[in-house]
């Protein structure tokens, strides 16, 4: 895309070359940033060369016009066109957009014309400069000198990000391996898959489940559950915003708990042969055998999330108990001084209720 002619397309040449280099550099950085997963971008975007090309074309026009009219280059306009229009057209997440505009503000600006301008924030073993050259081969030479394995620092990330990235990679690999494991191979232990799962549910999982919340009791309790001082009347505390919120949380928690209990009983019955083994139950059994969370516990039939997402069954069940602990303490004792926000189904609702309480 960039050749010698292109490098001599717009006057003043040295500035044009610097901008082209900076933009191409930024393009490769954001392409690479994807590998860090959520630490890099919230959503992996498919930026491609046409984004880069469009941005270059815009800057070319802009520079030509400003040269003809003898006005300074408007960095703001260029930054906006690159981060919000050309590349930004693909960005759907507000926070990614903010982050992207940080890159443009940092790398597409007046400073890049200064000699020895450095793309990296701190001095590292390799410093990314704009080469002071005129010929295309010299640029290529410089680019080939860049380290093959670029460290997280150039992305603005902490060295730990590399750790996160490698973790992600290995987890992905292990999951693939898990999926390729044969399911029907009967182990030498003599116990079949079903028996193991049945025993596990009967001896470990079912007794572990917390007691149900009885909604009629809950409503009674709520009426006498104090909120902050001076809010609500005795006996009518169920109208305090956070108590209403608590009621909604309890309802949702109870529905998850009911589903969990029901699937566990179904699994046992199906293994015993007293009810028909449906594909759904088989799936749940397989999941429990693999120490993973049955789909039914996390999603409703429409695919919407109904509970919390964790990778392992143990983590999920711990979440269940922790949530039960917080909710039952709140409803049966008193409002806790500090909340474990993770344990709510609807944390936004929690904050909204809090705002309502403060403003009342």
């Amino acid at each position, binding site marked *: 895309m960039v050749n010698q002619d292109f490098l001599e397309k717009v006057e003043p040449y040295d500035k044009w070359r610097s901008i082209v280099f900076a933009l191409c550099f930024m393009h490769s950085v954001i392409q690479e940033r994807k590998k*860090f997963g*959520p*630490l*890099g971008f*919230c*959503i992996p975007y498919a930026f491609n060369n046409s984004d880069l090309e469009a941005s270059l074309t815009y800057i070319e026009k802009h520079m030509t016009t400003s040269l003809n009219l003898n006005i300074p280059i408007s960095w703001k306009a260029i930054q906006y066109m690159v981060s919000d229009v050309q590349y930004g057209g693909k960005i759907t*997440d*507000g*926070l990614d957009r*903010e*982050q992207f505009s*940080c*890159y443009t*503000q*940092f790398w597409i*600006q007046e*400073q890049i014309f200064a000699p020895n*301008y*450095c793309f990296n*924030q*701190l001095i590292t073993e390799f410093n990314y400069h704009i080469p002071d050259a005129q010929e295309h081969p010299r640029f290529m030479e410089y680019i080939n000198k860049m380290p093959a394995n670029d460290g997280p620092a150039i*992305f*603005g*990330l*902490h*060295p*730990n*990000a590399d*750790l*996160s990235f490698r*973790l992600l990679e290995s987890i992905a690999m292990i999951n693939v391996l898990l999926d390729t494991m044969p399911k029907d191979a009967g182990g030498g232990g003599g116990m079949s898959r079903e028996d193991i799962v049945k025993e596990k549910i009967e001896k470990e999982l079912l007794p572990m489940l917390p007691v149900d919340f009885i909604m009629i009791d809950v409503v009674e309790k709520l009426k006498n559950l104090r909120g*902050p001082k001076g809010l609500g009347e005795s006996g009518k505390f169920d109208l305090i915003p*956070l108590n209403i919120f608590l009621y909604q949380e309890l309802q949702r928690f109870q529905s998850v708990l009911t589903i969990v209990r029901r699937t566990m009983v179904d699994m046992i019955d199906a293994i015993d042969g007293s009810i028909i083994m449906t594909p759904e139950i088989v799936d749940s059994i397989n999941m429990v055998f693999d120490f993973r969370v049955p789909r039914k516990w996390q999603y409703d039939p429409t695919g919407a999330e109904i509970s*919390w*997402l*964790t*990778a392992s069954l143990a*983590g999920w069940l711990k979440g269940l108990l922790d949530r039960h602990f917080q909710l039952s303490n709140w409803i049966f004792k008193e*409002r*806790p*001084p*500090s*909340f*474990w*926000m*993770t*344990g709510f189904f609807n*944390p*936004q609702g*929690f*904050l909204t209720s*809090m*705002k309502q309480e*403060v*403003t009342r």
Partner: protein
Amino acid sequence: MNAPAEGVYVHGLYLEGAGWNKNEKRLEDSQPKELYYQFPILHVSAVSVASGGDKPGQGGGNKAKAELANLEKIAYSCPVYVYPLRNDRYLIFRCYLKAEAAGAPQHPNKGLTAPMKWKLAGVSLLCCKD
């Protein structure tokens, strides 16, 4: 510990991508190998901003709009997510975290402000680690 007079205390958050300086109450580079930092208890409360939406601010509070604008300059507006998988749907709220020590030397590369640094580092608060 007692409940605050206004708002709520929230615990159980993790800071990803940065560390936290407890004494100065500001962001700092994370320790090597420490991917998540267990964040101290956060006081979340509501304040009304003269015009424009109200944002729950961190600790001390940002009462007027001017204060909010000032906060924009010195603090990083940190998103709080439910899962490490960041997504609009899992974004709960944002809070301002002080971005650098008072009187810190200006960055050698001009144009990069302290809040921008954390932005590029992808710092966020998470409710759970996996």
